[in-house]
Structures are given as C-alpha cells and as structure tokens.
C-alpha cells in the first residue's frame, strides 16, 4: 500500500536530496579513465605504505577506519541505492562482534569458525529486521530499524550470563600469526578491499539498478513487474551480511565488545559517515569514516569539547556540501570538466 502523498513526500524529498547525486542517476564521466587509474593507483600505494610510514597508533586508526568504512558502505547500499535509511545496522554489526567474541572466549572455539558464525548470526538478524521493516519507507523505516536495534542493545545489556552485561566480553580473537601489526593491517586491508569490491559489484549489478529504481519510484517498479518487497528484502539482507563481516573484523581488531558497540550511537555514527562522505556514492563511506575518525582523534587532542566541534562540522557539511564530501568533489570536478569542454 502506498501511503497518501502528503505523508510520503517530505521525507522522500529529504532522502532524495541526500541521494540526489548526479552520479547515481546518470554517472557522468567526471574523470578520464586514465585519471581514474592514476587516482586508484595512488590510493592503493598510499594504503599499502601506511604501516611502514606511520607504524603504531596511526596504523591502528587506519585499521579502524577501514572497518568502519565497510560498515558505512553497507549502510550506503540501503540508504544510497534503495533509499532506505537504516538505524539498525550498528546492532547487526555488533551482533557479529558479540558472536565472535563469545565463541572464542567463552566457547574456546577457533576464530575462523567464529567468523562464520558471526556473519551467519548477523545475516539472520538482518533477515528478521528486513522481514519486519521492508514494507515501510521513510520515517517509518527509520523508526522500525531504530526500535529493532534498541531491542538488540537491550538484550546485550541484560542477558548478562551470555553477553557479560554492561562489562561486555573480552579476549584476544585474532590468531597468533596475525598479532604483528603490519600483518594484521594487510589482513584487514585485503578483507575490506574485497568486501568493497563485492559491494560495488552488487550496487552496479542489474539487481542493484532495480534497487535504485525502487528508490526513484516504487510504484513504477511494481508496474514494471518487479517484486519490490523481495528486492528490498534481498538488498537489506546483503547489506546486513556486509555489516556483519565488518563486525567480525572489529572483533579481531578490538578484542572487546560491550553494549556500546550495538547501541544506537554506533548506527548513527555509521550513518553520519555515509552522509559526510556522500550518500549513494559507496566510496563516500570510506571518505566519511576517514574524516570522522581522524577528526575525533585530532580534535580530542586539543579540547575536551570535541563532540561539539564534530557536531559543528556536521552542520557545516550539511549546509555547504549536502551531497557529502565525495559528492561535492565530484560536482566540482564535473563543473571544471564542463568548463574545459566549452
């Protein structure tokens, strides 16, 4: 059932404004393929150099960035492509982290089995979330995923015998051969790159295009004969699967999980990364994660009022670059390209 127009319009417009990126509709060639190649090689070279140039704490920050970027991108799969903004992905992410730590520390199992179980648990959670939420859109979808996430948080907080309650679960997860930082860094880099590529493939597959179609007009897609709920269901599940994968990596990295990992704040932070980077750009998640984590660390170096500074930055971003940093950069490049041609 399509809600009356008056109820749908404002939010969809907000969603569109966020997602309305020239790129996702008709991807313009903002850069020549050669320029793209150069940028890609530069990025790879930069990422490979990290553990050698800035070993220690800064490398661990980059690891954290990569993991959260994956979470952000999984949120973007839904928010940017299907037009469904989820506030439950932090919980899906955290479920995987909990399962991995529980299996390894309490159960004494192998980390790789734990990883499989973690991803499976997150995917199952995503299936449940999806079944309940896909028939809604806009603010209803937002609130439903928020509520589902809060249920997970409440369970983690109160089911003390399994989750350790407020204190959480602790223990080294990563196997010994991953203990050295550069090795661990490359493990994370390869894993997250692979996931990014898979997500990119997914978003740009014919199936991914149907999600974009649903974002643009659900009724038109239905008229064209697409099973809209099924497509959204699959989209949500795939997105949850990647969030879960990111969650298992986080368990490897952090060796610790507590209810704050599944809390609303985690979902919001993931979403903020998407918005700052650019909704519907996929790689915007990486940019957003890098900017937010870097700023958090830089600003808190100078003032204990760092949350205020971050909040201010979000507002500024929203006013001057509502399409996100990556979207903004693309628009600039496109404009320059147009000037060149004319």
């Amino acid at each position, binding site marked *: 059932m399509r809600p009356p127009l008056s109820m749908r319009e404002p939010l969809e417009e907000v969603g569109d404004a966020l997602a309305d990126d020239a790129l996702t509709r008709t991807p313009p060639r903002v850069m020549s393929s050669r320029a793209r190649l150069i940028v890609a090689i530069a990025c790879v070279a930069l990422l*490979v150099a990290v*553990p*050698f140039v800035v*070993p*220690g*704490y*800064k490398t*661990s920050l980059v690891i*954290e960035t990569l993991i959260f970027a994956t979470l952000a991108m999984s949120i973007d799969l839904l928010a940017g492509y299907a037009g469904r903004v989820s506030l439950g992905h932090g919980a899906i992410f955290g479920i995987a982290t909990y399962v991995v730590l529980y299996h390894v520390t309490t159960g004494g199992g192998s980390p790789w089995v734990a990883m499989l179980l973690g991803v499976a648990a997150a995917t199952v959670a995503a299936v449940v979330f999806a079944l309940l939420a896909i028939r809604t859109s806009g603010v209803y979808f937002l609130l439903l995923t928020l509520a589902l996430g809060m249920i997970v948080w409440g369970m983690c907080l*109160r089911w*003390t*015998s399994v989750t*350790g*309650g*407020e*204190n*959480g679960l*602790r*223990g*080294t997860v990563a196997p010994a051969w991953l*203990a*050295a*930082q*550069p*090795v661990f860094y*490359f493990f994370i880099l390869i894993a997250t790159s692979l996931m990014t590529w898979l997500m990119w493939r997914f978003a740009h597959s014919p199936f991914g295009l149907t999600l974009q179609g649903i974002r643009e007009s659900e009724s038109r897609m239905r008229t064209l004969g697409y099973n809209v709920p099924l497509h959204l269901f699959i989209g949500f599940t795939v997105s949850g699967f990647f969030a879960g994968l990111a969650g298992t990596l986080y368990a490897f990295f*952090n*060796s*610790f999980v*507590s209810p*704050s*990992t599944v809390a609303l704040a985690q979902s919001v932070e993931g979403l903020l990364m998407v918005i700052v980077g650019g909704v519907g750009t996929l790689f915007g998640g990486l940019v957003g994660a890098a900017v937010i984590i870097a700023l958090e*660390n830089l600003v*808190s170096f100078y003032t*204990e009022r*760092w*949350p205020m500074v971050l909040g201010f930055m979000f507002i500024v971003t929203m006013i001057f670059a509502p399409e996100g940093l990556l979207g903004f950069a693309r628009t600039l490049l496109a404009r320059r390209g147009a000037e060149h041609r004319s």
Partner: protein
Amino acid sequence: MNRRKFLSSASAVVAANAVTAVGPFVRPASAQGGPIRIGLLAPLTGVVAAGGKEMVEGFNLYWDQHGKKVAGREIEIIVEDDASNPDTALQKARRLVEQRNVNMLIGDLLANTGLAVAEYVKGNGVPYFIPIIAADDLTQRKRIPNVIRIAGYSASQMPRPLADYAYHKKGYRKVVTISQDYTFGYEQCGGFCQTFSENGGQVLHQFWQPLNTADFSPYLAQIQSLKPDVVYAMETGADANRFIQQYANFGLKGKIPMLGCMNLTDQSVIRTLGAECDGIVSSAQFCEGSTAPATEKFVAEYEKAFNKLPSLYGFSMYSGAMWLDAGMKAVNGNVEDRPKFLAAIRKVVLNDSPLGRPVRLDDYGNPIYDVYIREVKRRPDGKYWNVPLETVPNVSQFGKYDPETYLKQASYSRTFQGIKKS
C-alpha cells in the same frame, strides 16, 4: 616498488616486530632521564563526566602540592577523555601508549572502560593502575600481573563489614536489597548478602532496577509491603540522588532504616542533597568526616582548592598519585624496568595517605583497609558528610574467607549472590 621488493620489505618489518614482541616487558633504558609520562584516563564527557573531572582534580592536586618531580625526573601527566565509553577508552589507551609513549596508565571510572583497557595492557605489559575501577575479578579470578588496584577497592570488599554491623550491632534480621542492574551492583549486593545470610540473616527480596530509573515508586511500594528490618541500597550517580529523595518523599525514611554502598552517600551524591540523606549508614575506607589529622588536613586542602568536599573519586586519585610517587621513588625513577617497578608498587606501604593509617596491597594487588562504618550527618555549616561510627580493621577483598577457597566460588551475578539458605 615491485611485488617482490614489497614482499621482502614487508617480511622484514614483520620479522622486526616479532623480535620486539619477544620482550614486551623489557624496554630499552635509553629513554631514561627524560620525563616520566603518566597517561591519565578519565571520563570528561558522557554519563559520568562529573566524577571524571573530580578524578583529574584529585590526581593533579597531589602533584601540584608535591612538585612534579620524582628522583630527578619530571612528571608529565597526559589526560585523555574516555567519554564514559569502553571503545573510546580503548582507543585512547592505545593512543597514550603507542603515540604518546606513556610509561604507565592510570584511571578510568566505569568498570567496562577499565576492563577494556585492562584487556589491552594484558597484551603489551604496560602498567595500568585502577584506583576507581572496582570490578572484583580484576584482582581475583582474572587478574593481570600489570594491572594493580592501588588506592582502590574491589566491589564486594566493603559491604561485608557493613553486613556484620547490621546483623550483630543493630540486630537486623531481614533485609531487602535494591540495586542497579549491572555487575557493580551484583558484586556489592553479593558481598552484603553472602555475609548477612551466613550470619543468619534473611534476604527477603532483591530488586534489580535498570540504570537511570526515574521513578522508584513501584519499588518503594513493594519494599514497604515486604516489611524488612532494613534496606540495602546499591545506587550510584543520579540514581542514588533520586532514590534517596524518593525514599524520603514516600515516607519510608524514619520507618525502615537505610544502609548503602559507599557510592550511595559519596560526596558526589550528597553534596546536592539536604536532610533526606541524613542518617544513612554505609561502609568505606574513606570517611571525609573522620577526625584523623591526616584526613582533616586533606579535606581542608581539597575544600580550599576546589570549594567542595572531596568525593571518593578525588580522594582515590589523590592517594593513587601518592602511591605512584612512592613506587617510583623506590625504583629511583627507573620506571622503564617494568618488573622492578611493578614489584615496588606492590611493596609500597602508604603511611602518610589521607586515611591516616597505613595501607598496603594483598598478594593479589588489592589494598587491605581498615573500613569505616559511617553515617551521614549534618556539619555545623549545613553541609552533609559521612562521619565514622566504628572501624573494622584489616579488611581484605576476601573478607574472612581463605583466598584460594574463595576464588573457587563463582563470581557474583544476578543469579549467584552467595546467599546461604537457612
């Protein structure tokens, strides 16, 4: 860089790391002579920010009074905000150790933040001191050699003397407990209930309420209908404030006496309260209304510096700083030799602490105290504070139990409170 070159350089780095990983406890002595860097973690934002600020105040007060120098080396204190969040605490601990090269970490307030940092230092051997974190198992079943509770206490340690006092001195036989529903509460109530029931007392009911309960009326009504001799309340922060107020508003004050954990009547809570907190009895190692000269001196100095009575947070971090000072002096400032430094910290007997009585650690890294049974009283100037009723000497975290036997018992939880069935 071609692939082969990259691989060989990568493996070289890996090998180099493997070599350094062999001896995480041995640092090259070349750093010696520079300042001693202390990483202080405190929640300056988030739900317990008020307590976090007092932690920093207490810690800095000591160094301001005594000069930031030990054995000829400057003391450099680097404060980081853990945001009352374990993930942030972990991140900040990493930054302090890996980027700021601190020699040791101290602090954190919430148990979950402390446990997260403890897990991290377990891997790299950095000394970590926890004057505020009371989680039992950090000095019991899951103790870590380089995590020491200087100037702190473990959660179940303090309520035991109070349970004895309630049963033997006051003649209470039936208790109802109300507590915040998390580990710190399970441990405090466990300590109280186990001792109280083993003495012969009866635990009628235990209420576990969610953190940040705004309205206690359902609990208060049930407490009244259970007709206990006494209530034991385990509340911290704003919950403590609300519980004490509502207990008085609902007319239970004066009818059913209230006992509490030390946090219930800590200055951080009763500072803003009036007559409703009068007469609550609790137990703690510190009692700001004590007439011991050392305590009086400390309280006066603290009041002068910050215009308020010291809370547990300020006091514990002040004593913690004193403890570090003594430990660092014992190794002549050579904190880079971690095993020696940690051994020195363990051997410290603090004679000049604000408690006015010597304090030392047990074999498990938790202090042994003479515990005050204390009551909230009005000071002549109208402020409320805790004054001592009596003192129970030499209380360790194991109470009257044999440590090895005690450690075989399960950790306290919502389902296991050590209650002896009579």
